[in-house]
C-alpha cells in the first residue's frame, strides 16, 4: 500500500433544500453496506412523507425497503467528489435510480462522465432474473421431495436389475467361449479382494470369536452349563457372524474400490473409449471383478470361520478352563455340518450383491470428480444394506426348510 493510498471510506450527506445526495470517498463493495443501511433512513427522515407511499420492491427485505418518497421531489445524486466507484456501487446507484423512477420521482446522477459513465452503463440493472420458480408451500415441498426420492429409488433398482441382466449376458458369452474371460484381471482382482483382505478378516473374526465365546461363557457359567458355550460359539459364528463380518469388510474394502476405479475411468471417458472400440465394458470391467469376489469370498469366510473358532476356543480355555482337546471333542459332538453349510451357501450371493452394486455405481459416475466420492459412499451403504437384507431372507428360508 505504499505507492497509493486508495480512499477506503465513504461519506454521504443529504441536502434537504435541493434534495441532493452528495457522495464522497469510495463507493465499493466494502463501503456499500453503509449506504445500503443509511440511505432509506436518511431519505425517510429528510423528505416530508406524503400519503403516496412507494410499493416496496418484492425482492427487498423489510430492512432495506424503499423509502417513502415524495412523488415530485427530483433527487440529484452528486458523484463529483467520489474518488472510487466499482461495479457493485454503480449497480446500486442504477437500482436506486430505477426504483425512484418507478415511483415517479426523477433521479439524476451528477458527475457521471468519462469512464464512470461507461461503468454506470455497464452496470445497468441486470434483467431482474426471476430465475426462482414459485416457492412451494412447505408440506407440499416435502411431499414433492418424497415423491422424487421414491421415483429415483425405483428407477435405480430397475437399473440395477438391468445391470444384473447385462452381467449375466456377458457371463453367458464367456460360458460359450471361455477364451473371452480375462484371466489376468480375474487373478489380479482375486489377489486384491481376497489375499489382501486376509489379515484384516482374520484379525476381526478372531476377535469376534473371542467376544462371542466370552459373553456366552459368562452367561452359561451361572447355569452351570459351561460346555454349551462351545455350542453357542459354533452356531453363532459359523452360521452368521463370520459370514456377515467378512461380507461387510469386503463391501467396505472391495465394493468401494470397484466404484472408485470404474468411476474414475468413467469420468475420464475411458469407458466410452472402450465402447467406441466395440468392446463390452461389462466383459472387461465387471465380470473379472464380480467373479473374483464370488470365488474369493467363500475362501475368506472359511478362513473367518476357522479364526473365529480359534479365538473362541482360546477365550473358553481361559475362562472355563476347557482345553483345546475338550473343545474339539465337544465341537465334534455338536457340529452338525448344517451350520457351516448354511454360512457357506450364503457367501456367493453376498459376493454377487457386493460386486454388482460396486460396479453399478461406478458406471453411474458422470462428469465431475465429486460424483465419484458420492457414489462410492452410496455403494458401500447399499452393499452393506443388501448383505444384511439377504441374510435376513436366508434366515427365513433356512428356517422354512429346517436346515
Amino acid at each position, binding site marked *: 500500500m505504499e505507492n497509493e493510498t486508495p480512499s477506503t471510506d465513504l461519506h454521504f450527506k443529504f441536502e434537504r433544500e435541493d434534495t441532493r445526495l452528495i457522495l464522497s470517498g469510495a463507493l465499493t463493495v466494502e463501503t456499500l453496506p453503509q449506504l445500503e443501511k443509511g440511505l432509506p433512513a436518511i431519505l425517510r427522515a429528510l423528505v416530508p412523507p406524503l400519503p403516496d407511499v412507494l410499493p416496496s420492491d418484492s425482492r427487498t427485505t423489510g430492512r432495506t425497503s424503499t423509502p417513502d418518497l415524495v412523488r415530485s421531489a427530483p433527487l440529484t445524486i452528486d458523484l463529483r467528489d467520489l474518488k472510487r466507484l466499482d461495479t457493485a456501487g454503480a449497480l446500486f446507484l442504477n437500482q436506486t435510480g430505477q426504483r425512484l423512477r418507478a415511483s415517479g420521482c426523477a433521479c439524476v446522477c451528477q458527475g457521471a462522465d468519462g469512464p464512470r459513465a461507461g461503468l454506470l452503463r455497464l452496470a445497468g440493472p441486470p434483467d431482474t*432474473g426471476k430465475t426462482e420458480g414459485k416457492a412451494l408451500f412447505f408440506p407440499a415441498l416435502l411431499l414433492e421431495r418424497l415423491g422424487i426420492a421414491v421415483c429415483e429409488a425405483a428407477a435405480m433398482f430397475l437399473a440395477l436389475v438391468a445391470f444384473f441382466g447385462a452381467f449375466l449376458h456377458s457371463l453367458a458369452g464367456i460360458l460359450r467361449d471361455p477364451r473371452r474371460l480375462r484371466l489376468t484381471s480375474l487373478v489380479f482382482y482375486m489377489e486384491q479382494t481376497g489375499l489382501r483382505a486376509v489379515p484384516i478378516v482374520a484379525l476381526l473374526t478372531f476377535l469376534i470369536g473371542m467376544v462371542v465365546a466370552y459373553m456366552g461363557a459368562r452367561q452359561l457359567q451361572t447355569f452351570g452349563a459351561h460346555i454349551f458355550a462351545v455350542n453357542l460359539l459354533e452356531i453363532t459364528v459359523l452360521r452368521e457372524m463370520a459370514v456377515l463380518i467378512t461380507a461387510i469388510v469386503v463391501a467396505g474394502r472391495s465394493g468401494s474400490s470397484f466404484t472408485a476405479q470404474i468411476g474414475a475411468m468413467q469420468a475420464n471417458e475411458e469407458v466410452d473409449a472402450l465402447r467406441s472400440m466395440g468392446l463390452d465394458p461389462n466383459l472387461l470391467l465387471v465380470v473379472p471383478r464380480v467373479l473374483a469376489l464370488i470365488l474369493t469370498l467363500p475362501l475368506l469366510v472359511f478362513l473367518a470361520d476357522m479364526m473365529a473358532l480359534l479365538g473362541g476356543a482360546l477365550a473358553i480355555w481361559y475362562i472355563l478352563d476347557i482345553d483345546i482337546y475338550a473343545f474339539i471333542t465337544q465341537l465334534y459332538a455338536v457340529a452338525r455340518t448344517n451350520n457351516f453349510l448354511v454360512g457357506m451357501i450364503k457367501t456367493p450371493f453376498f459376493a454377487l450383491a457386493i460386486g454388482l452394486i460396486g460396479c453399478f455405481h461406478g458406471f453411474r459416475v458422470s462428469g465431475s470428480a465429486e460424483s465419484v466420492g458420492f457414489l462410492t459412499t452410496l455403494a458401500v451403504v447399499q452393499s452393506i444394506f443388501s448383505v444384511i437384507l439377504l441374510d435376513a431372507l436366508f434366515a427365513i428360508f433356512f428356517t422354512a426348510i429346517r436346515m
Partner: protein
Amino acid sequence: MDAPPLVSLRGICNRFGDQVVHEHLDLDICGGEILGLIGASGSGKSVLLRTIIGLNRQTEGSVRVMGTDMDAAGKKDRDRTRRRWGVLFQGGALFSSLTVGENIAFPLREFTAISESLRRDVAMLKLSFVGLPASVYKKFPSELSGGMRKRAGLARALVLDPDLLFLDEPTAGLDPLAAEAFDRLLLELKKNLALTVCMVTHDLDSLYTVCDRVAVLAEKRIYALDTIDGLLQVDYPWIQEYFRGPRGRAAADSRRGGAD
C-alpha cells in the same frame, strides 16, 4: 509508463529438485495493460503464474504485487492484496457443491457485508458481463459445458472488481466464436473497469487482438517482452517459428484484414 508497475518480479529462481525452471527471472506488469505470457510447453508458464499469485513459493527472488512484497508483508497485507486480484484457473475451478450463482457471490459473502438481495444482483450482473444467461444462476457447475464453466469462473474472478486479473489459458477449449467473444469481453472489461490483465495463452488470435505486450518465457527467464511487432524483430528461433508459422501468419493476416 512512469507509474510503478503493478507486479514486479525480481531475480526469481524456481527449482524442483534438480530441475531448474526459472533462473534470475525479472518481469514487470504495468497498470492498465494486457500482458500475454507465452512459452513452449514445459517452459514454466504455469509455475510463474502460480509464483505470482502465491501458490508456489519461489526458491529465490522477490514478488511485489501492487506495492506489497508478498513474502515480507504480514498476513493482513497479503490477504488485502489477494482480494484485489482475480484468478481464472484453467477449468474454471468452480466449487462443485455450490450453484453457479453462489460461486460468483462467494467472495461477496466472505468479504463484504452487503445485503443478500444486492449480493444476488451483483452476481447476476457479473453473470451478464461474461455473457451467460440468467438461467445458469441456479445450476450446478457439473451441469455446464466447459466454456460456460470458464465464463462463470471469470465472473467469480471479477466479482470484487479486481485491479489485476490472472488468466490461465482462458480461451483453451473454447470454440473460435466463443474465444472471440471472450477476447471482446476482455477488451470491454479492461476499458470500463481499468483492469490490468496477465494471461497465459496459446491462442494467437487472442495475442494479436487483446494483448498490449507479450512476454516470452524461454531459456528459464523472460527472454523478450515487447509488442508483437517488436517481438517479430527478435532473433530467436522459437519466437520466429511461433509468429511466422502458418498459424501465426493466419492470425496476423486476419488482424490486418480486420483493421482495414
